[in-house]
């Protein structure tokens, strides 16, 4: 059954919390609702369960507006898993899950039926909570409690499972355990899931589609990779992030980028020779110190290439998995010529990028100050039969300085910068 929200607005007194929300959740979908604190996520969920009265707009399930549903029918349509369920009263796990059968009770006189007991047993089995079904609910761990509450939601036999930040009080194993369980129910039972999620990466990993709320309006909705872009996250959350793809699941994931300290850009040019992901920290460090950084030659898709792009610095790039061409090398040397400093990271050297060491030699012969970042315990990075080590020794002999760590560079750089 399709869940549709049309032109929904809601206010608490004078404060408008939701403004003209339009959503359509398809049957069997795993739908995420995201947004900063106070953006109206929980209010939206409460409007859907009719816990809050809808003022403006309409919510319908399978084409039927919610107003036509009885309280019990609502509870047979939606089951809710809240952030946490605390009670000081001694309920057994079994009793808690049995509460899911309340909307299905025929009359007040009849107690729990055989069917009810069987449905509760199955629900506990599916959430792997059967083994503690006789324990007192309040004595369980956070993850166990959430499994019991999900079992209760299953026992409700709902069409749509609504979750309000179900993992917010859980540790990382509890988070994954809970989300995996919900995903399993979604895939295997075809239960439609609508989940308010705080964690961007959990949302990206589990949701088919995401709606992003900001200040009560719907900012964006669609597939995680379409919604979770650095631009939308910047506009909604006001922070800079890097967006990557998990190489194993292809799910996007988002990393907050540490804000660059506000520094004076002195414009001293520094060129980084790197590759194989060895130059990222170097580039970020120099960038944050106010240098105008450039880098080369790296292959497209190399981590160093991606980071250079994220930092918006000039990069000499070669197509993936190819040798550095003469053109690229010449361009690299040209950038070196424009720089005051050249820093060489401890990148692995193979036949494909040997020219980068030649570029470093060219830097020395152009009279540039050259630094080689190489700690004592760096493993062998020579894949050209000793030629690279020989070359590096030659560079050091010709005046290149060696530092053990990126952070050791700063005093050397500032010394003579003036």
């Amino acid at each position: 059954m399709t869940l549709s929200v049309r032109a929904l607005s809601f206010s608490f007194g004078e404060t408008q919390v939701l403004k003209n929300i339009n959503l359509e959740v398809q049957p069997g979908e795993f739908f995420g609702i995201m947004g900063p604190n106070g953006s109206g996520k929980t209010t939206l969920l409460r409007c859907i369960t009719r816990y809050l009265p809808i003022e403006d707009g309409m919510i319908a399930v399978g084409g039927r507006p919610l107003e036509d549903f009885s309280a019990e029918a609502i509870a047979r349509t939606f089951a809710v898993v809240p952030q946490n369920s605390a009670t000081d009263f001694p309920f057994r796990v079994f009793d808690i899950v049995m509460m899911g059968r309340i909307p299905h009770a025929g009359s007040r006189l009849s107690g729990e039926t055989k069917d009810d007991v069987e449905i509760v047993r199955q629900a506990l089995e599916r959430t792997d909570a059967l083994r503690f079904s006789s324990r007192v609910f309040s004595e369980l761990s956070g993850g166990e409690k959430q499994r019991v509450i999900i079992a209760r939601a299953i026992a409700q036999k709902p069409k749509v499972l609504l979750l309000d930040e179900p993992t917010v009080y859980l540790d990382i194993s509890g988070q994954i355990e809970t989300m995996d369980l919900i995903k399993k129910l979604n895939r295997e039972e075809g239960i439609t899931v609508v989940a308010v999620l705080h964690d961007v990466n959990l949302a990206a990993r589990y949701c088919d589609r995401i709606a992003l709320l900001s200040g009560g309006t719907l900012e964006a909705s669609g597939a995680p990779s379409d919604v979770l872009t650095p631009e939308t996250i910047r506009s909604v959350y006001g922070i800079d992030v890097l967006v990557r793809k998990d190489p194993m699941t292809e799910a996007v994931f988002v990393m907050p980028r540490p804000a660059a300290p506000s520094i004076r850009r002195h414009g001293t040019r520094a060129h980084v020779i790197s590759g194989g992901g060895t130059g990222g920290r170097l580039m970020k460090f120099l960038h944050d110190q106010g240098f105008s950084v450039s880098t080369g030659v790296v292959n497209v898709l190399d981590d160093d290439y991606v980071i250079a792009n994220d930092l918006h610095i000039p990069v000499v790039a070669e197509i993936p998995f190819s040798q550095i061409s003469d053109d690229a090398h010449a361009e690299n040397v040209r950038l070196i010529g424009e720089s005051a400093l050249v820093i060489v990271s401890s990148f692995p050297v193979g036949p494909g990028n040997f020219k980068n060491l030649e570029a470093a030699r060219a830097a020395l012969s152009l009279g540039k100050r050259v630094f080689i970042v190489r700690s004592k315990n760096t493993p062998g990075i020579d894949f050209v039969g000793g030629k690279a080590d020989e070359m590096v020794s030659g560079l050091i002999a010709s005046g290149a300085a060696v530092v053990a760590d990126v952070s050791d560079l700063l005093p050397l750089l500032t010394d003579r910068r003036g």
Partner: protein
Amino acid sequence: MRDLSRPTGSESEAFDAHRMKTRRLLVVGVLLGILVLTAFVAILVGTLGPIGPGVPVRISFSEALRAIFGSSGYHWVFWNIRLPRVLLAGLVGAALACSGTAMQAVFRNSMADPFVIGISSGGAVGASVAGLLGLSATMGMLAQPMFAFMAAAMAAFGVYLLGSVRGKVYPESLLLSGVAVAAFLGAIVSFLIYFARQEYHQLIFWLLGSLTLANWEVVEILAVPVIAGTLFIFLYGRDLDALLLGEETAHNLGANPEFLKKAMLFVGAMLAASAVAFTGVIGFVGLIIPHISRLVVGSNHRILVPAATLSGAIFLIGADTLARTVVAPTELPVGIITALCGGPFFLYLLRKNSMGRER
């Protein structure tokens, strides 16, 4: 150490609907048995009977049995004084315990009971007004319970209004305003009694909670509202379960929390007023009994409500028997006995709750 991963006996029991029902019936059966036994002993104990300290008129056990079931000269004493008194104690105890169970669910607080939140005091104001105006003489025996109920309902409604903000009721503020209302109404009752000098001593007795006014007429008047109210609360047992997990959860499980809270306050007030009307304020029964019952049978109201109701009856019959005998040949107001048990128990709960919060 028990292997938790393997189903245990009690667990397989949880998944057998038939055995689950049998277990509940067993609990109710055992409590009914204890109730009958306690009542029987209570009937035998007193200034006239085979057992009890300092009994002025000691008769043999068989003589007492003949007096109860036959037509000996003492039949009238047992049948028209002892039995209604025991039945009244049972009804009042049941009403208070059941009302307390419902209040604790509404307030989601194991320290709520009709006495603590002021409903009993409200009933006492109504009953004492009716008593002082001599309304029973002009309007019949029903005047006192009717006035008690109206005042108790008003107290419940007042506490509810004071404890709610924009239509939403918050348990903590409800409990606090209940305590304040209880103190205020208690002062009104004391004020009224102070002005009724001629009946001072009798009213003091009533104010402390006592079952001395017991007779068949009182028992008949109270039986209907107490049984009806208890049954109502029992039928909403599953909804009360859900309410204990919070109003939003109750709503999401198809219960109607707003209706439930109002209905339970109304019925709880009716039960408390029934208890207060002829016996005065007997405190703490609604606090102790649900709490202990919950420790034994759990929080599931389908079993908790009957268990607490029966235990309340047993407890008050026992307490009253004690009140009748402990300073024989005179007697103590039973409210003193319940307060002596209840006060420390309340403090114990308070300590336990605040320690739990620190953890």
